[in-house]
């Protein structure tokens, strides 16, 4: 088990206790909500900017380039500068656009990714809410983003935006199925939808190892389907630069564009965080059977490091896809989902149910 000094439960409990000590209970709850909101907003901004920076660096390494290296140390402040530029930019009003929906769309997109973030366990005892249907909630909430994308495409009064949005709608709705089914695999293994319980169930081995072949299949399907769900290359048809200018956010500028842009990267983080939590044990350290000394050393690494390490490993995988695969065409994209991934994941669920019933996985 992890060392107690790295546990966030004591920290959060202490804050809770001290707030309750000199405040009315309702005021304490409100204060806690405000604190959580501020922390998440800050985290959201920093994470978004860092992921954009990371993408540019990873892409540069793959493409034999250096990448941003002028603003700040190693170019770290480049994305901050870009963001300042974006928020100070003029918001161009679009003629004949439905201005209410046009302005609403970026908020729906960003709110969806913001809500999904709430249920993710970042470390031992560090999550905003620990819902008993955590994973179900995340899937449900993150698919709200497509509504924003469709609204953005429709209200922009631009053919290119509309084509991008329609492609995106078709894509997200189809791949949602495979994402759900592959995550269901782990739910069947763990026997719960509560994310903290799923993480606890991996204390003696991550599901990708314990569940061997079926879990591996589920993970690969999840990786493909979730890459498609967040509209990233090779599935970035919604904003295919070489075909549709920028897809559904063609007409957006300034801060509204920044919302779409940030939401895209945060969605990537969420998708990777779910993969890390469900398949790679979340914040659980890596243990090997009875190698007690090794396990002990692993325990000394804080749970936050474990969680972010795994998450960024998967983010790296997703970035790697983008820069080494060409884009699929819309018909090929839907073929892949409906003809291959969906039947495969359905079959996989049946196999997993059988495996779990027979107890053919490592306990």
């Amino acid at each position, binding site marked *: 088990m992890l060392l107690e000094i790295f546990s966030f439960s004591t920290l959060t409990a202490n804050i809770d206790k001290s707030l309750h000590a000199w405040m009315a209970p309702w005021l304490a709850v409100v204060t806690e909500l405000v604190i959580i909101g501020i922390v998440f907003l800050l985290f959201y901004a920093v994470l978004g900017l860092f992921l954009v920076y990371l993408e540019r660096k990873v892409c540069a390494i793959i493409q034999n380039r250096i990448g941003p290296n002028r603003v700040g140390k190693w170019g770290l402040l480049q994305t901050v500068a870009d963001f300042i530029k974006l928020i100070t930019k003029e918001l161009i009003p679009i003629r004949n656009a439905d201005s209410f929906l046009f302005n609403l769309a970026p908020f729906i997109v960003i709110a969806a990714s913001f809500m999904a973030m709430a249920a993710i366990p970042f470390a031992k005892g560090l999550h905003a809410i620990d819902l008993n249907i955590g994973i179900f909630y995340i899937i449900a909430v993150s698919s709200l983003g497509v509504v924003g994308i469709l609204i953005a495409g429709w209200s922009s009064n631009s053919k290119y935006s509309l084509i991008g949005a329609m492609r995106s709608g078709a894509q997200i709705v189809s791949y949602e199925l495979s994402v759900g089914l592959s995550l269901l695999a782990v739910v069947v293994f763990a026997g719960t939808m509560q994310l903290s319980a799923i993480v606890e169930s991996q204390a003696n081995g991550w599901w990708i190892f314990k569940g061997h072949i079926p879990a591996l299949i589920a993970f690969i399907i999840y990786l493909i389907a979730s890459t498609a769900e967040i509209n990233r290359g090779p599935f970035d048809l919604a904003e295919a630069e070489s075909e549709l200018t920028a897809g559904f956010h063609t007409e957006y500028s300034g801060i509204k564009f920044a919302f779409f842009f940030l939401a895209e990267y945060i969605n990537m983080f969420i998708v990777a965080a779910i993969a890390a939590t469900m398949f790679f044990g979340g914040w659980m350290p890596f243990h090997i059977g009875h190698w007690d000394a090794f396990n002990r050393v692993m325990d000394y690494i804080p749970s936050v490091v474990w969680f972010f390490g795994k998450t960024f490993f998967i983010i790296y995988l997703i970035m790697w896809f983008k820069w080494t695969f060409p884009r699929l065409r*819309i018909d090929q994209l839907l073929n892949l989902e409906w003809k291959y991934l969906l039947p495969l994941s359905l079959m996989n669920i049946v196999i997993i149910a059988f495996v779990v019933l027979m107890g053919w996985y490592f306990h």
Partner: protein
Amino acid sequence: MREKATTLYIGPQHPGITGNMMVRVKVEGDTIVKATTEVGYLHRSFEKLIEKRNWLQSFTLLCRFCVPEPDPVEESYARAVELLEGREVPERAKYIRVLVLELARIASYLLWYGGQSASLGLYTIGQWSVGDRNYILDLFEELTGGRVYHMYIWPGGVRRDLPKGFENKVLKTMDYLEKRLDDYDDLMFDNTIFRKRTQGVGIIDKEKAVEWGVVGPPLRGCGIRSDIRIDDPYEVYNKLDFVVPVEEGGDIWARALVRRQEIRQSIRIIRQVLDNIPAGKYYNKIPNPQKWALPKGDAYTRTEAVRGEVGMYVVSDGGTHPRRAHFRGAAYVHAITLLENLLVGENISDIAAIMNSLGTCPPEIER
């Protein structure tokens, strides 16, 4: 249910295509029912300007016909002028010309690698190949003084002799490139998505290809062996040993495979040129260009460029300026007639890929 057709404007900027040109497509859903090309963004009236210049001054214009590969146009014009005057070219100059032409072909193909893959959403290979193209541009800089526009092939030979140790540098670059081509294959041709995106897309009918006047790699991608370097050899191509690759299918994939093999053949040609290059003069000096009058007559030359056959027709009325110069580039046929025909029935996602595979070069269309 019949969908209502809408009009989309694709371009005038396209990935991997130098110059501007728009395609106006009528689409039903995602499928193109009618395509119309809109050119005219780059008209600089090259042919008229050539008439206002003496026989030597035009070279600064000629290299701007098609930015990625300027040398075949210079070559065509230089040969046409030599034909008119009956001027001999030293053997060494002929070899150097072939060397420059093939280097330019490789440089242009490296740019095509980037365009073709970027049009399909694979941006990495373009960064690699354009980076490697720089090594060839370095060679050009050392040889001609210019990286992109060379103005190197002149009537009577070439402008400068090879610098000292240049052969070794070329060989080294070729060795390096050969290794890199394997990397490109790994990323591009071994990629299932790339194959799926290109096979069966933009098919040129074998019978229609000849009728439409398709030339170059698109024609060879239809299974027809046609190459001016073999059919009507110029300079020293008849002394060199190389193969003209042909692929069946007529789709983007076949055209890409043709280009992939051609780049290796070009390396082979360059190696042979460097082995056999004779010593001697590189330039038969022309008289003072201000007073240099060519005998009355006309001449037509053809050259195999990356995009296909380019032809130059020059008429002289016995004066110091051309009476008329007419240029026929492959892009004119490919990017207007052929493109408009090929796009019908295709998906809008494939427009850029088809344009790239046809070797579209807008400045060449609007000479």
